[in-house]
């Protein structure tokens, strides 16, 4: 589910950036627009809550949420740090596992065809259903959160790397094979570098879903983390704190996504450039 929300979010943000109604330069508009949208959303929210006089335990106004955020800043920071840690560790394991298995699976169509249905099946299992099993195995706490983050995020990495390696142009393969290149040569010289843009593109999806995985595990079974904090807050009817938790979650998600994009741009600038070049021919 999280896989589909991420691209939609980017699409809608580019749409709003593309609309030009102000006299500012296009570039400034592009920079201002995301902030304007966020602020506009909060203003609208605040106004709606005041206008219709929603009770605080149904929908707290942003001002109340910010107040709760400030009031509970220490527990929020502590639990956010826990969630960030489990996310990053689970994500890190997913990178290693996804890269290695992606290379292996992409290298052989036999392995690819053999393992793909199993992987699809595995990916279709809602991870929230797996958490109780993890709790039986590892107990409540940090480990199930890390494992859930890993389980939910290795798949996009694996699929992207495998695709990058499996789709090396046949002509290029012929050039290399005609020179006597071994399968390993082709993977090392072409397959892996070629799959890097796919790999880095998958990171931004993987990091956001890893984050979702951590929070799911914390919500179901944990004594720490931002998910746990929200569950505790809702059981005490501290609704503004629940919303504060959601807001922090969203902010952390955006930060992780932005970091992943920055890494992607830095590592594989050649891939977007080469596409521009090809279209210009």
């Amino acid at each position, binding site marked *: 589910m999280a896989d589909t929300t991420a691209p939609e979010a980017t699409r809608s943000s580019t749409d709003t950036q593309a609309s030009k109604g102000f006299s500012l330069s296009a570039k400034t508009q592009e920079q201002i627009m995301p902030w304007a949208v966020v602020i506009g959303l909060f203003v609208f929210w605040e106004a709606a809550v005041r206008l219709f006089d929603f009770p605080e335990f149904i929908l707290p106004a942003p001002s109340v949420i910010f107040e709760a955020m400030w009031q509970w800043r220490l527990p929020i920071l502590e639990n956010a740090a826990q969630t960030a840690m489990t996310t990053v560790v689970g994500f890190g394991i997913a990178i290693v596992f996804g890269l290695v298995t992606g290379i292996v699976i992409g290298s052989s169509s036999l392995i690819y065809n053999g393992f793909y249905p199993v992987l699809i099946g595995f990916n279709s299992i809602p991870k929230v259903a797996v958490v109780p099993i993890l709790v039986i195995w590892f107990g409540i706490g940090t480990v199930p959160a890390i494992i859930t983050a890993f389980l939910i995020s290795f798949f996009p990495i694996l699929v992207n790397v495998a695709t990058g390696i499996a789709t090396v*142009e046949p*002509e*290029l393969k*012929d*050039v*290399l*094979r*005609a*020179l*006597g*290149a071994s399968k390993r*040569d082709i993977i090392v*010289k*072409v397959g892996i*570098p*070629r799959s*890097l843009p796919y790999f880095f593109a998958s990171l931004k999806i993987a990091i956001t879903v890893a984050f979702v995985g951590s929070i799911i595990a914390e919500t179901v079974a944990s004594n720490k983390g931002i998910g746990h904090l929200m569950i505790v807050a809702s059981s005490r009817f501290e609704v503004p704190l629940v919303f504060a938790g959601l807001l922090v979650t969203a902010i952390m998600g955006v930060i992780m996504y932005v970091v992943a994009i920055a890494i992607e741009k830095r590592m594989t600038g*050649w*891939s977007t*450039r*080469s596409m*521009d*070049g*090809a279209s210009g*021919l």
Partner: protein
Amino acid sequence: MGKGFVDIDDVALRYGGEATGTLALSGMSLTVDKGEFIAVVGPSGCGKSTLMKAMSGLWPVTSGGVSVAGQTVSGPLSIVGMAFQAATLLPWRTTLDNVMLPLEITQPYRSEMNRRRGHFRDKARALLKLVGLEGFDDKYPWQLSGGMQQRVSLCRALIHEPALLMLDEPFAALDMFTREELWGVLQDVWMTKKPTVILVTHDLREAVYLADKVYVMSARPGRIIHERDIEFARPRDLDITFRPDFGDIAHDLRDHIYTARQDAA
């Protein structure tokens, strides 16, 4: 048979199974002398590219024999250099590193790579100069035009000094002026390095301008139905392509291809 540098003796090649597979070549025989430049033309789908695969050992023949340099071909040969219609350069490598790629794979260069990298670089630069790409060493493929990319592809096919150069419609994706320019480049390269060249093309002017001998293939399953020596003196100038005797040869070849297509239909 068995005297030429490349010998193709009564080759049949079938893709897939005995009953359902496609017979791409049948009764294909061809002999190319060392240092000769030949062109193979034919109607589309006649198995020209299959012929290349059979010669380079990328695809095993179903019956008959292929030998290159006196050895029966049973797998890929490192004395072969290839270039295709698509330049297939690696976008993450500079021009120079793209040209050097075969040296990282074929022996003896592969094991000498660390020790003699500087020497190999000089070699690659010399080749780039020969095709008119001096000073483009550090450019990436996306910074080059289509014609330039194809020149780099040609250099990559030549860097390991292959005795046999196989070109599969290398200029087909280029505009006419760039194509004619690259004919000149290819002729220069051939006259300098003297490899044996097999050029597969559907451009008759290209075939007649470049080759010592042009072979016409039948429709699928492909075999040679006509061969013609081209005796213009070298180096050939583009002006000869406008001479009547050049036009007559191209016209005559065209008739053979037309007949081959008629037979197929």
